[in-house]
């Protein structure tokens, strides 16, 4: 049972990460479409934000791994 709950928890965390990074990607594309010259800066900022959000989602994955083993 703990294993199943841990897997469900990890899956929920992935929903959060997917939504967050998807929003960032979408807004970044809007911004680049508006102003293509700023494309490089926007892309850099997008990648950094995506890595930070992924860090938070991986907290949850780590917690599920700990509670599973």
């Amino acid at each position, binding site marked *: 049972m703990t294993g199943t709950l841990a897997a469900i928890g990890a899956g929920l965390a992935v929903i959060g990460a997917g939504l967050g990074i998807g929003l960032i990607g979408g807004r970044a594309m809007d911004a680049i479409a508006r102003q293509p010259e700023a494309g490089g800066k926007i892309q850099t900022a997008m990648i950094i934000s995506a*890595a*930070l959000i992924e*860090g*938070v989602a991986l907290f949850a994955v780590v917690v599920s791994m700990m509670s599973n083993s």
Partner: protein
Amino acid sequence: MSFRSVPLFATLIIGFILLSPGYDLKGQEPHGGEHESEAVQHEEESGSEGFNASEYIMEHIADSHEWHILTKPNGEHVSVYLPVILYSKHSGLHIFSSKKIAHGHSHEGFQMGHGKLGDKNLEGVIVEVDEHGEMAGEGIPLDLSITKNVFMMMLSVIILLSLFLSLARSYKRTGISEPKGIQGFLEPVIVFIEEDVAIPNLGEEKYHRYLPYLLTVFFFILLNNLMGLIPFFPFGANVTGNIAVTGVLAVITFLITQFSGNRGYWQHIFNTPGVPVWLAPIMIPVEIIGMFTKPFALMIRLFANITAGHIIVLSLLSMIFIFKSVGMSIPSMVMVLFMDCIEILVAFLQAYIFTLLSALFIGLAMPEHHHD
């Protein structure tokens, strides 16, 4: 088939040949061979009919005292046995090769533990037993061995030192001039860290003191991430996926942050400007916890990203064994190659993020008073 698709096909075929383990698909247990101890029998009984994917994955992610290179068809293991260094309260210092305690053997009273002691898991820990097989005294000696991770950290230190010391020497000889050789590769990266990470976060006057640390952390994490992706000896140990290693890096950042805190920093924590006094009992614990969560997040972020990448690659590889068919190799290899490319991106990105956030936290500890 146009000329452009030749590199793609070549990569797929080479990847198939290099990455597909050539031995029997029924499992990884040795057929025949010498049965040296009951531990080998135990492995055969439990694993000879199936492939335990989670055990395979955990074995490759965790640290180990020996470096298993391959298993020959007749069941012999070819491994590099690293030295075991133990300090026991009873019998002092012991140094021996890990071959002596591989596969369940016992040497000078030490062997690999099984089961649990209280709630502490003893699998993979070296324990000390007396003549009757009971755990002697407190049982667990202080383990200072050279394991896979320690060996690879030392190797990465040697590589980094040789690379950067020769770089410094070539600058000393030729002065600031047109870069040649390895300079041309490293100089843009170093200048990038100096100009885009250090100066914006630490300010023009003070960044010199912290730039060596930031550069060290960046190249150490980057090199270890990349070396963890190469599957053959002597690379391939999961250093930055070891929470102890990332924990130490985060602790060092934390200590540097605290020791460079100036008055403004401590004032922000204990006496946040603009906050009424009666909120202080809430604000002060929150700020103190905030002081600790930032390096904690650094540690978990690096550990989880790298370990998750390795687990994904190993799971995709073990799909071949779960489906028990050679035809599964090609889709599996394609996916593994794709994941490895993402892992290279993640290696660079995580090193950059760790360095950026360290610079940010150190910079936050030295606020200039622009308000009022």
